């Protein structure tokens, strides 16, 4: 069962993502900000990361940059959940090592479809 780390400081979004992915049969661990996520990702291996961008303590892009530098996360898909329609957040995220992004608002089906594609 693929294991996913869901990172968002907003508990409603986090719960929604987590609930949806669990419903689709994935194993989900939640984190409340980039720092929390980084700690969790280092202590266990995830197959995919879904992270919010704007978060306190450590934002999603910094988190991705840090995690991508870890040897066992070199090829792991990392998706940003972002409301930013502006291209700069996306390219900033890409430069930090993000695989891609899912634009908020999204519905649970869109989320699952995207993740299924990425995980194959």
């Amino acid at each position: 069962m693929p294991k996913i780390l869901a990172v968002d400081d907003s508990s409603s979004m986090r719960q929604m993502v987590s609930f949806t992915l669990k419903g689709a049969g994935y194993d989900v661990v939640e984190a409340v900000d980039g720092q929390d996520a980084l700690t969790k990702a280092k202590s266990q291996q995830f197959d995919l990361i879904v992270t919010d961008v704007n978060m306190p303590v450590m934002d999603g892009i910094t988190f991705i940059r840090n995690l991508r530098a870890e040897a066992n996360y070199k090829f792991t898909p990392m998706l940003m959940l972002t409301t930013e329609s502006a291209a700069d957040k996306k390219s900033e995220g890409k430069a930090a090592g993000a695989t891609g992004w899912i634009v908020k608002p999204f519905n649970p089906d869109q989320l699952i479809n995207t993740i299924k594609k990425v995980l194959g």
Partner: protein
Amino acid sequence: MSVDLEQFHQVFFEESFEGLDIMETGLMELDLGAANSEDINTIFRAAHSIKGGSGTFGFQGIANFTHVMETLLDEMRDGRRQVTREAVDSLLKSVDILRMMLNCEQDKSNPDTDKIQQQMSELEFILGESGGAAAIQAASAGSSSETTGWHIIFEPDANMMLTGNDPLRIIRELAEMGDIEVKTNQQKLPAFSELSPENCYLSWDITLRGNITEDAIKDVFLWVEDECKLTLTPIVDTSVQPAAEATSAAPAVTESVAPVAATASDSKKSTQSSSATSSIRVGIDKIDDLINMVGELVITQSMLSLLGEDFSMQNLEKLQDGLGQLERHTRELQESVMMIRMLPISFSFSRFPRLVRDMSSQMGKKIDLIMSGENTEIDKTLIEKIGDPLVHLVRNSLDHGIEMPADRIAAGKKETGTINLNAYHKGGNIVIEITDDGKGIDQDAVLNKAIEKGLVPAGAKLTAQQINDLIFQPGFSTAKKITDVSGRGVGMDVVRKNITSLGGAVEIQSEHGKGSTFTIRLPLTLAILDGQSVIVGNEIYIIPLVSIVESIQIKTSMINKVAGKGETFKLRDEYIPIVRLSRVFGIENAKAKTLEDGLLVVVEADRKPCGLFVDDLLGQQQVVIKSLEQNYRRVDGVSGATILGDGSVALILDIPGLLRMSVRH
């Protein structure tokens, strides 16, 4: 699968309201002109979360509204826009609107769309003013040329896989769209000794057949458009056309933005009203205390019942011990239960920073609000009821107390005035002080006004305290002009009345030119009262201890009978009306027939003394107040009832009510 998003709504509402509080506090703390970008970012983040959540959970109106706020905040954060007072004010108003919208969604009621629209226009106006990048991009139509297929040359950069993007995933995705033919180009594959396993050396020549739009294909490559070379050529009727080499230009994903909030939530119309039962958040430590206490009580009870089963006189000491313990534990339990209803007064104070900010800018005054003792705990009911009187007093200080900046400078004061809001416990009461360093009470003006209004006879000599007290008289206002802030003369008397009805008192100290302090004293709770029990005939009554000044025996020589006005007696220099409880409550077997036989309990209400004539005093005790209205009906002169140790019921006297009754009689 479908997920019911409604289950996340409550969490969304809660965190959104928290977010709004963060925005409000943050906005108020912003330094105009020189705002710290991290401060703005905190506000931005809160707005951003609300926008993301509301869009996801189906509150499109809120998402659209927040989007405009967010755009403004974004420009401030990037330094593209100055933090002006105008913008901050407008954002604060927007926070209010957003709160209203969230409340409406929560109650499933209709928001005031005019207000929303108006505020939205205001924000857009501010955005448009400096030509900020407010433009909400409409979804780009994109090219939708239909062809029979595409010829795709896909050349990933060597490091594409290092962002987690697998070229095979992309090809698999394409394969789902139509018939696919893939030729792999291995030309760039280096010698094995130079091959890095992390790099991608392959490229692909793909023929994809089917009725597929260019946008759909670009969507597949969306995440990697900067990490590969992509050539798309449409195939028309199997003849390859060399034209239209579309090297992937950035087809930015645009957020679809529905046309403004106006009608967004109207469809949510529903008669269903939220029946939010009032609840209270209690710290786990308080609950634990309670459980401990109950445990102790159970132990004491079992000890006592053991003693009772086989009692002999030699166990008397143990019994007394046990009873002593029982009393102690019961008292502790009572205190713990009361603690549950206690909340920090910050619940009431929290609205003031915004109030002071808004009103001072409206009036052109400069005011600092300093709050202390916010963690002082007070009964929840009292918190709810003290809110309005407090607002009135703070408004009063703002409006009548603090002077205009120019006047302050002329008076040799700091340009910025200060209002202090302070709360603390003192001797079983909670004390709330509102202090300002404004102009204080002009006692001559107050006295003249009182004489003019006929509240005080001309030429009367009043002490400073008595003059200050006049402002609590009904219909009294010295403000030269009525502002919409205060000064309609319906204020201070109502404030005093409300506070008195809570069993509290309000006083003012003031020095002309230096400022004023209003002091509110409140009981900690409305559930328990310190009382003096008195007996009249066979009836026992409870007089609230706070109202009692003294109890005296009187001599007939001190009594005056005034025709039509009842009895008075002279206590020191004052004539005080006497109220015989036996007459008020129609008790015929009162023991004290003449005034010399009984006792006179001197009580005070609304600063007016009065003598209550009773047979005798019994003891002082704490009594638990039971509502008469809930169990019977309202009775004049009685504020409630309590159950005494022997199981009988005693009425608790409502002293101000009793005095009003006696005046009528």
